[in-house]
């Protein structure tokens, strides 16, 4: 049923700071459920995130692993830790075409992009510099090579071979007066892929 029309007093700015009038208390059952939920999740996220690998912690992690992976609650907080990387690096590809021509293809490099572009394209750094170049991520390489093959293929010529190359230069410790220096750039071809006709579709 509608309430009777009435004109409330004009609100003032201070009224927003007034204490909230009513509380919505939880039922006993809800309090118990909330307590169990909170206790379990505090245990789970702390166990997962703590930077220790004692046998007990490893076993606890194993017990909750299925749940953490499924929900996406897995987490590791180690930004630039325990020590920041000292490597400037990027990944490129050497492309060999059917007619024998070669070309270099590079993932977007943040240091070569403008302020706006680098904000949009930063995921390429994460993907290539933090993951693709690592030997432990070798399973990523065929997909990357196939993607590059499609990206560089032209109607007149198709690539037949993709070489993935990592480049790096180490930031050296500061000199006696704090001066910068870094090692010369080094490169290494870490993966060679022969392009199949089906890859370009």
């Amino acid at each position, binding site marked *: 049923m*509608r309430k009777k029309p009435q004109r409330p007093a004009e609100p003032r700015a201070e009224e927003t700071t007034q204490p909230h009038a009513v509380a*919505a208390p939880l039922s006993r059952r809800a309090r118990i459920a909330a307590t169990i939920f909170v206790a379990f999740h505090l245990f789970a996220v702390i166990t997962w995130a703590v930077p220790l690998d004692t046998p007990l912690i490893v076993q606890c992690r194993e017990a909750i692993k299925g749940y953490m992976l499924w929900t996406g609650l897995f987490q590791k907080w180690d930004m630039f830790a325990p020590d920041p990387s000292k490597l400037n690096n990027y990944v490129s590809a050497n492309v060999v075409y059917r007619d024998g021509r070669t070309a270099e293809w590079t993932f977007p490099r943040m*240091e070569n992009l403008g302020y706006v572009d680098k904000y949009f394209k930063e995921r390429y750094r994460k993907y290539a510099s933090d993951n693709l170049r690592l030997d432990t991520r070798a399973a990523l390489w065929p997909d990357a090579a196939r993607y590059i093959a499609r990206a560089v293929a032209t109607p007149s010529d198709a690539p037949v071979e993709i070489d993935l190359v990592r480049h790096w230069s180490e930031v050296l410790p500061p000199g006696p007066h704090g001066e910068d220096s870094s090692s010369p750039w080094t490169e290494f071809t870490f993966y060679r892929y022969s392009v199949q006709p089906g890859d370009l579709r």
Partner: protein
Amino acid sequence: MSLKSIARAWNEFFLEPISPVPIALFRILYAGIVLLDIALLRPDWLIWFGPRGLITLPTMEQMETGARLDVFRFLPQTEFWTNAVFWMLLVSALFLLVGLYTRAASIATFILVASLHQRNLYIVHSGDTMLRVTGFFLMFAPAGAALSLDRLRNIWRGREGVTPVLRAPWAQRIIQVEMCLLYFMTFWSKSMGASWVNGTAVYYVERLEQFRRFPMPDFLRSLPMAKLETWFTLAVEFSLGTLVWIKELRYWILLAGLLLHLGLEYSMNVPMFQWIALALYVTFIDAADLARAWSWVRRAVNARPVAFAPASARAAEVLQAADVFGRLRLADGAPTVESAASVAKAVLRLWMPSGGVDSRGMMSAAAPSRSR
């Protein structure tokens, strides 16, 4: 200390009702960040998540084993469905932003955000992880209990009054704990690294060209400054992970965190990470302080008033609840607000930057800005 006192402290901390305004504000910031995040990803959406992208779904499943909450695993592997996930996430995040069907929107947003991460974990940074994890707990929070269209709808239907109802904060508390974990575990990991202890860590980070954003003045890149910056980072991370719970220190620590993240946002190119971390800070701000700060903003902005004549108590209550800018004036002769449509129009009027009444407070709400 007895078991009883521990139980009492636990109940007080997790279950004693508090204002839902901070968690509602976090909801708004969270949804805004999700929208910005997918806007940044949109130009390369198919490259990151598509069937012909840099990582195919079978490769992802091979590398990251186990059951995962990932809608991509159930959808056809086509570009159409990959794009559909973008549009679904856009709509759900918009609903979450305005607080319409908040619970359902928070569930949909979490599932889709988690799916994006599970689909391609190799482009995910720590800020994304925090977005995913806090999104999980946001589903359980009373995020639509304030600053939401749901609330206005409830008032219109007579289910709520003008003042928000206090709610049990357990989900907000876990989000706060997550923020502390982010900082404290990072501090802990860093404390095991020689470069963080000897003060050279920031020196190296500043020389990683792929992270550089805006130019830094030379004196800030010097070794002595790099040492100060390194130890400042450690001190702030330790404080945000632990001391932030102490009421007297809280705002000073949050201020130090704000300075740290703004400095990182300027100097380092890690999109959205700093804003995700800063959004968490609002869960630590007292609702009364938020209201005081907002009143100060309103006074500083001094928005033009808008006059209405609500024809019912519920219409008046909806307008009062929606009057976040303090523009509402109730006046005879002003446009009458009675039906749901006219209330909705009046609420939009309150939120629009232009329009209003003259100094006598009698001009029509529909009056254009020429009344200035």
